[in-house]
């Protein structure tokens, strides 16, 4: 091999503490190095041109650039050497800026270390091989997991762009959390009035197939060609026949079912349509509450159904679809606030969550839009809102800010005044966080125009007294204790990753953080990508956010999917594992550990052997580290390449 070495000054960034010319001189003596020089800015156009010129002049077949981190400019230089006619993988970088010049001032030590890093890079480069990507066709269909506002936005954008969309929603209706809200901040416009039409669009769009009351069962395959299995849970109602007339729900004798949509504010029936604007507007039976399933006798709904849609024998069904990209938009859940003894741990009926309060405020909710105390149905006058319940609290493992509670609390205080003009709202808060367009003005307005009293401090306890609840807390601005006798207490409960997020992440082979939120590819530059190619994120599943941000992310994720699937063919990364079939003994250890199921067993003249599915392999190299005989190797990071680096460091 004929190696050229280029030591970049990066202006004074490197040259300030590294003798670049000295490094270049030492590198000239390394094995297979035939040309070595220092250069002012390797990444700038003149620098790249100099590299290209040197390749041509000296007949170089490999290039080492010692400059900044490969995470910055490896792609830049790979393209440059490609322009010079060398395969892009016949290139190595030595990081002498972030790992040398920027972390120490000792010129002698830095120069020596830089020279060693170049030796390592050159030693590895000697063993590099030309690698070429392979092309494969893509399936132009997107899976959207979750039918909340983020998922709806992603699905509509992708469908409008001409892609087929498959949407999977766990609940019997799409709409998510937004569908439960009465109004939205800071405009105080009707939530269902703006969301409803979009839900209808989903139902009517010719490119969208909706699987409600369904969950993701299994994902295999790879970017461009995922094979997805969807479990359609049994609803015991044939939705092809159900017209959504609602007769069954009127006649159902089991009227004590938990009303999930209404957050348990009132009971509902065992067969139900979650709410009037539900999409799809179809009935389903909650098996746990149905008399037929639990007592063996009833069948009223089957008798009254005019279309004969009721099917008690219905089983879960698995649907298989092939998609090219996946958008995860699974949203969030409220934290279980009953861990807090100071708020009564759920013992007091008149302590409710903000989402329950939304249902009370909603004209289509169980109270018909009248605020009533759950204990006695009376209209409350003094309403206390407590913010940061299960947010910013390390003691319960929820140290983060949920982000939207300050705003919706302000909105609810305004709505309280609108509903009950002679009411008085009190808001206990830690800080007001309202960085958004028109947000801060909104939190001012609730105090200044609507007379809500904001108390900066934490509530230490709530206890019943007479028919009221005494809320005792600190006022850290006034420096004293406050007690408010409340008729109703509303907890601004924070959010957490939706139940089952880690399990879903594992199915999608994406990573998730300690709270279960899915990890984006890069916190700044890849906010909706994941580290699994072809899987994108939208909405609160990536981290809690409000409606505008969720919608924006839904569009962003759709744009990424559209971009990906706009191509007919995709290139696979050639930095993947390969098997030397002669060495492979078919012990299956690589197959066992591969996180991507990218290795399968094949039969070769009666002998079992491993085979890498090139499009599935992500290039982690776990198989390589597992294979005892080194029969499976990761291209560009083979045992010999890494050993050459170790030897370059240890032998000299």
């Amino acid at each position, binding site marked *: 091999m004929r190696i050229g070495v280029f030591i970049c000054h990066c202006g004074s960034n490197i040259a300030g503490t590294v003798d670049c010319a000295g490094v270049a001189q030492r590198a*000239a*003596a390394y*094995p297979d190095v035939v040309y070595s020089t220092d250069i002012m800015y390797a990444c700038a156009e003149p620098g790249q041109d100099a590299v290209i010129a040197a390749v041509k002049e000296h007949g170089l077949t490999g290039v080492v650039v010692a400059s900044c981190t490969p995470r910055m400019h490896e792609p830049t230089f790979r393209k440059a050497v490609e322009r010079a006619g060398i395969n892009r993988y016949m290139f190595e970088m030595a990081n002498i800026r972030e790992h040398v010049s920027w972390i120490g001032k000792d010129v002698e030590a830095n120069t020596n270390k830089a020279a060693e890093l170049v030796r390592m890079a050159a030693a590895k480069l000697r063993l590099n091989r030309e690698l070429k990507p392979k092309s494969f066709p893509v399936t132009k269909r997107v899976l959207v997991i979750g039918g909340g506002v983020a998922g709806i936005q992603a699905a509509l954008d992708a469908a409008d762009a001409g892609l087929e969309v498959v949407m999977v929603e766990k609940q019997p209706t799409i709409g998510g959390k937004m569908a439960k809200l009465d109004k939205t901040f800071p405009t105080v416009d009707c939530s269902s009035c703006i969301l409803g039409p979009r839900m209808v669009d989903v139902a009517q769009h010719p490119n969208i197939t909706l699987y409600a009351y369904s969950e993701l069962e299994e994902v295999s395959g790879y970017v461009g060609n995922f094979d997805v299995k969807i479990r359609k849970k049994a609803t015991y109602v044939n939705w092809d026949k159900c017209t959504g007339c609602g007769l069954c729900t009127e006649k159902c004798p089991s009227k004590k079912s938990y009303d999930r949509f209404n957050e348990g504010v009132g009971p509902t029936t065992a067969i139900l349509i979650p709410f009037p604007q539900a999409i799809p507007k179809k009935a389903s039976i909650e098996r746990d509450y149905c008399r037929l399933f639990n007592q063996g006798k009833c069948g009223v709904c089957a008798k009254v159904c005019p279309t004969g849609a009721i099917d008690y024998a219905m089983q879960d069904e698995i649907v298989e679809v092939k998609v090219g990209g996946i958008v995860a938009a699974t949203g969030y859940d409220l934290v279980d606030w009953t861990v807090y003894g100071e708020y009564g741990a759920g013992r007091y009926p008149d302590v409710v969550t903000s989402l329950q309060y939304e249902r009370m405020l909603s004209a289509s909710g169980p109270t018909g839009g009248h605020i009533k105390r759950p204990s006695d149905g009376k209209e409350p006058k003094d309403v206390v809102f407590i913010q940061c319940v299960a947010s910013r609290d390390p003691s319960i493992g929820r140290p983060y800010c949920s982000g939207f509670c300050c705003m919706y609390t302000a909105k609810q205080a305004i709505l309280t005044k609108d509903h009950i003009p002679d009411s008085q709202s009190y808001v206990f808060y830690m800080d007001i966080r309202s960085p958004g367009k028109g947000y801060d003005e909104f939190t001012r307005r609730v105090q200044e125009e609507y007379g809500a009293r904001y108390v900066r401090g934490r509530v230490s306890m709530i206890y019943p007294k007479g028919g009221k609840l005494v809320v005792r807390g600190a006022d850290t601005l006034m420096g004293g204790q406050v007690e408010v006798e409340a008729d109703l207490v509303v907890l601004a409960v924070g959010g957490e990753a939706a139940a089952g997020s880690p399990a879903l992440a594992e199915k999608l082979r994406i990573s998730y953080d300690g709270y279960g939120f899915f990890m984006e590819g890069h916190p700044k530059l890849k906010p909706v990508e994941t580290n699994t190619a072809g899987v994108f994120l939208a909405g609160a599943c990536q981290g809690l956010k409000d409606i505008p941000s969720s919608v924006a992310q839904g569009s962003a994720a759709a744009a990424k999917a559209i971009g990906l699937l706009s191509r007919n063919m995709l290139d696979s990364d050639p930095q993947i594992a390969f098997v030397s079939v002669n060495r492979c003994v078919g012990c299956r250890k690589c197959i066992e550990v591969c996180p991507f199921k990218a290795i399968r067993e094949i039969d070769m003249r009666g002998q079992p052997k491993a085979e890498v599915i090139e499009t599935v392999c992500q290039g982690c190299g776990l198989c390589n580290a597992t294979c005892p005989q080194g029969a499976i190797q990761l291209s560009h990071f083979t045992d010999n390449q890494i050993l050459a680096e170790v030897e370059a460091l240890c032998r000299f």
Partner: protein
Amino acid sequence: MSAETVKKFISFDALPGFLARAAEHGTVYAPRREGSAVVYRPLKPGDAPELGARPTESCKHVVFPRSETLFSFAGKADAAQPAVRRPVLTESPEPGPAVVFGALSCDARGFLAFDPVYKGSGTGGAAADTYYLRRRSRTLLVVKACKSALNTCFCNWVGGGPASAQGADVLAVEAEQGLVLDILSEQGAIFAETLPAASEGQVGAALAAVKAVEDSLPKAAELSAAPAALASLFSSAEFWKNESAHCLYCGACTYLCPTCYCFNITDESDGLSGVRLRSWDNCMSPLFTLEASGHNPRPNKADRLKNRVGHKFSYYPSLHAGRFSCCGCGRCIKSCPSSVDIRKIVLDAVKEAANV
């Protein structure tokens, strides 16, 4: 032990001092006990050789190291044109003189199987091996006669004996709290020059000891039919499959063998500088015959065991005047982890060939 040669005597008490003086002129290798093994080690001043138990390994590594650097190489950069590298070879240093004190008779006879090969006798000396020959010529062999035979010994089957002097410079026989040294070469005479002559009584006792051990050996099996028998079984796959069934094809037999002389050559290099190594190889390993194409003419252990036995008792004798490439030391049997017995294989082969 012949009557004509000079006989010297050294008492066991005087031995460490004598060997320490000898070590001033070269490296003295002698058996030493290490753990459960007895191995030939360079003797440090004051160390006594282990002459009671028989060495686990042969002493062939003194002349034929397990791995030796033939030469080192480097690319030297031209000051004016750094890209141009001139290759520079550095020969390994000449080996110094060595003595193996307390080798077994079979060990000394082992070198007699090596010599024709490394002298390049098949090429009229054209392919003589300098590395081997220069060590061989500088190594003195002092053989200590065995006092008894082990269950695995069969030196008398292949032309040797417990007190055979073949290949030795000096033959030492235990007698009267010391060793009677039979001087067999000029080098041996120089080695023993400072020692007193053995008394008649000492010589008599030594001769009696030699006779006693020679008489104690079981009768040798008749192997004259073996070369032809093994040659005729070359294609008898079933025979070799059965004989090799319990073989685990490690290299213990060949590496402990005083007559196995095969080697491999590898370069260790960082691309600019490095060494060329010659290291022991063994025909029981599948890599021994693995070709660059990936083809292996001896893919199974049966093929390889056939080669090992065939080589020793048929192919080698056909090239080297009928001499077996086996000295009957029995180490391959004694140290075989799966109790493969080469005697049984040869005898089975003779029987099998007779039946066919």
